[in-house]
């Protein structure tokens, strides 16, 4: 579930830009919004969606909210593909070994 949301959240280019601002480390909303082509409330809204998707976390620091990347969000996508290849390669191995054993028996 978590990573469906991660896909959807990052499909918006502005939201992805907001997310990418956090790659260098934690930042308060005001600093994230600086230089962005959208308003500060819009940036806050994007951060809210990213948080709901499990991609960022926030904490209070005095009167400010500081955001940082939550590495678990993108990890879910990776885990999915990891599991896919794990299962698929097992099926491949079973097939290739069956084939090789059959040929050996023929010789």
């Amino acid at each position, binding site marked *: 579930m978590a990573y469906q949301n991660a896909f959807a959240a990052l*499909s918006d280019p502005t939201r992805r830009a907001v997310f990418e601002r956090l790659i*260098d480390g934690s930042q308060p909303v005001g600093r994230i919004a600086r230089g962005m082509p959208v308003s500060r409330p819009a940036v806050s809204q994007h951060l809210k969606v990213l948080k709901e998707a499990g991609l960022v976390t926030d904490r209070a620091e005095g009167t400010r909210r500081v955001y940082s990347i939550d590495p678990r969000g993108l990890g879910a*996508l990776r885990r*999915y593909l990891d599991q896919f290849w794990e299962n698929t*390669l097992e099926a491949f191995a*079973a097939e290739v070994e069956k084939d090789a054993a059959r040929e050996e028996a023929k010789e």
Partner: protein
Amino acid sequence: MTKTITLAPVRKSLTVKAPQAKAFEVFTTGMSRWWPATHTTLKAPFKESIVEPREGGRWYHVGTDGSTSETGHVRVWDPPRRLVLVWRLNAKWEYEPDLDTEVEVRFVPDGAATKVELEHRYIERMGESGETARSAVDSPNGWSGILEEFRKLVDGV
């Protein structure tokens, strides 16, 4: 300086009790025999997964009704050592012509056996697809359906 989101590639390796050439052959021309039928771009039931044996060759699925749908293509064809497939399937398990993720498979002889090393990279690009990724959230054929299939596989149902 521009920074972009990256994800570590998915890496898998396993050793199969078969010669290198046999492993390469079954992985490519024999793909229909082991590809999970649940994981396809087809609307019809899965019948075959075809990898055309040359650089630039198509990689597509064939359904029981004869319909076909694209999966990607062959970027590197270097039998029996190495294969790079371009995987153009998005979050909804649908073909997207602009999506470019790579699946590299190396076949390394290990005595009479072969070590198979697989790397699926640039997977963060799957997050860049717009509308389909959004609709994948609620689609029964989207991730949740696929994950359910996986659970069945993992649990041996």
